[in-house]
């Protein structure tokens, strides 16, 4: 960020009534001081992207194969076509990333690979959403309508993100110990089956825990009536569980090394285990949970540049490469785009392009209860 843009940003905040005059003047002074510091001996050490900040876009996403695929298939051609550099960063979790965005200055982060409509609503609630000019993203026409709808509902018909991929959180079980019939018969209740005490796992995330507890108590997860019964089911699962996992890597190693026999799991990760020859079954029970991920443009970003990059990232060859890397189907409509050989075999893939069979979090409902439920879960999971 150079001097003038910093000044303009402060000025904009002042005009918006965000800060009062005294603060404005104080911050101007401090900003000047800081710039002096940064430009002094430290200026030599500043990485080049901070200086050459004429036109660049910051993208943040998951590391490993996903970011490799993006770099290779989207960023390189984009930079070649536009001359705009893509600075890519990584995060280990959506929550941690949001914490960073909140503590940053506007414009520092541009595009992020976020999970869930829930997160979309959360960013919007914190005033971080933007309005995409959809004419600049022709590839958006290839994206499944159903995935766009929940976003438009939150931001009054506008889009601040493009849907990118989707998956399910279903029930994974080791077929050495659980037959397919048993899994199908028991459904969500498999996760609270006494027979598997200390061989059960679960994601340590409150939404997923509550969703499955609602299924176990025969309720509609998007309209829970008996919350006490849900917490009891969460507790029951906690007492039977060996371990709450907190990342896909942990999920895979727990299942792959037979520490646990049943858990809920992310479809793409279970597929990766199956590909490696582990005999793991995967089942989306009735009412099972699906989710989608999006590429979100954060407030304060250079919009035209971001829109163009989004269009590159939605190119079928890019989306397919990313999908094959992470084993989650792309948001592209299979009726409009040929998705190749592997994608149609991925779990959660819907050939109809309607996704009618999948259940998603109702963002309004879950956001309303977020504060209370996430906190209560923090206690329940610790034995309360």
């Amino acid at each position: 960020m150079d001097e003038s843009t910093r000044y303009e940003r402060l000025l904009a905040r002042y005009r918006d009534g965000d800060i009062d005059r005294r603060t404005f003047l104080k911050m101007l002074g401090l900003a000047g001081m800081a710039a002096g510091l940064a430009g002094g001996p430290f200026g030599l050490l500043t990485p080049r992207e901070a200086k050459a900040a004429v036109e660049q876009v910051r993208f943040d996403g998951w590391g490993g194969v996903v970011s490799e695929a993006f770099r290779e298939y989207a960023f390189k051609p984009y930079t070649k076509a536009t001359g705009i550099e893509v600075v890519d960063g990584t995060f280990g979790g959506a929550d941690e990333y949001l914490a960073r965005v909140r503590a940053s200055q506007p414009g520092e982060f541009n595009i992020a690979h976020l999970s869930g409509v829930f997160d979309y609503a959360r960013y919007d609630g914190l005033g971080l959403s933007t309005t995409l000019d959809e004419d600049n993203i022709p590839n958006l026409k290839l994206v499944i309508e159903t995935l766009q709808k929940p976003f438009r509902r939150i931001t009054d018909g506008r889009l601040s993100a493009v849907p990118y991929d989707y998956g399910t959180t279903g029930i994974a079980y080791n077929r050495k110990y659980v037959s397919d019939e048993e899994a199908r018969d028991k459904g969500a209740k498999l996760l609270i089956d006494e027979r598997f005490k200390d061989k059960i796992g679960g994601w340590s995330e409150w939404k997923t825990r509550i969703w499955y507890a609602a299924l176990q108590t025969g309720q509609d997860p998007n309209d829970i009536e008996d919350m006490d019964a849900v917490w009891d089911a969460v507790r029951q699962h906690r007492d039977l569980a060996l371990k709450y996992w907190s990342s896909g890597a942990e999920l895979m190693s727990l299942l792959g090394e037979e520490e646990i026999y049943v858990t809920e799991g992310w479809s793409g990760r279970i597929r990766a285990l199956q590909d490696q020859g582990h005999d793991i079954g995967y089942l989306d029970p009735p009412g099972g949970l699906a989710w989608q991920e999006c590429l979100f443009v954060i407030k304060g970003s250079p919009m035209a540049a971001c829109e163009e990059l989004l269009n590159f990232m939605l190119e079928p060859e890019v989306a397919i490469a990313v999908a094959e890397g992470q084993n989650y189907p792309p948001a592209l409509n299979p009726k409009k785009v040929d998705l190749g050989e592997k994608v149609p075999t991925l779990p959660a893939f819907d050939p109809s392009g309607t996704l009618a069979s999948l259940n998603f979090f109702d963002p309004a409902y879950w956001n309303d209860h977020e504060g209370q439920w996430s906190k209560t879960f923090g206690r329940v999971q610790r034995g309360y």
Partner: protein
Amino acid sequence: MTATARGDRRPWVLLTPALTAVTLLLVIPACFIVVYSFWLRTGTGAEQAGFYLDNWREVLTDPFYRDILGQTLRIAGISTLVCALLGYMPAYFIAYTRFRHRAYLLLLLMLPFWISYIIRTMSWISILGVSGAVNALLQWLGIIDEPLQMLYNEPSVILGLVHFLLPFMILNIYVSLDGIDRSLTDAAKSLGCTGWQAFREVTLPLSLPGLAAGCLLCFVLGAGTYITPMILGGPTDAMFANLVYEAIITQLNWPLGSALSLVLLALLGGLVAIYTRYLGIDQIAKSFR
């Protein structure tokens, strides 16, 4: 030994770089934490500025936090004790061995750190898990039929912590042992002390500064960790830092997270105060006069 007149500016010159860094990067940001702890989190996750005591009331009166705090201190305390017991002898060995490249032994002790923390912690699953190395060996030897369940409980959290903290303990003890004048133990022996007596009367007391510094480091680091319980603990094995992490990162409740971390800070700060008062540099320095 520390005879210096008041008003001497030399110590402050020496301290300037360190104190500047601490002030700019720690003290001032810490003031933000204090201010935040009186704010409130609203429904959307944004904060409401003001002066509210709600967070403090919750943190100080809710038995949930007290219990987890107790659990944290217990786990950190046990880990520190185990580290001290396990660490002293290797430190002694490195300090007194005739092996020429002693510094090299220290470097080797740090080897596990080249393997990143997450990987290192997760690798215990490959060692102690049901299909891990230990179970495979025991089954092969015919000692057990069914694999033992060794992970995801409090002992495994302590194990992970000890593994992480032990090098700090060993290095601290080594450094102080190495500084002890050898002629002192020789003198004690020539006065008729046995080796053990010489150790107990001379070496051990003189190595206390290192042992104390090691214990302080281990305890503080142990109490502030959240990744180890997350990876090696069962569902209920949580430490206070996990709560702070959850409040700040998962719930985006920065005001509550600030209040929680100030509680932890106060507690550990109190510990450091005790350390500087009774075991600290000053106290030990005096015994040398």
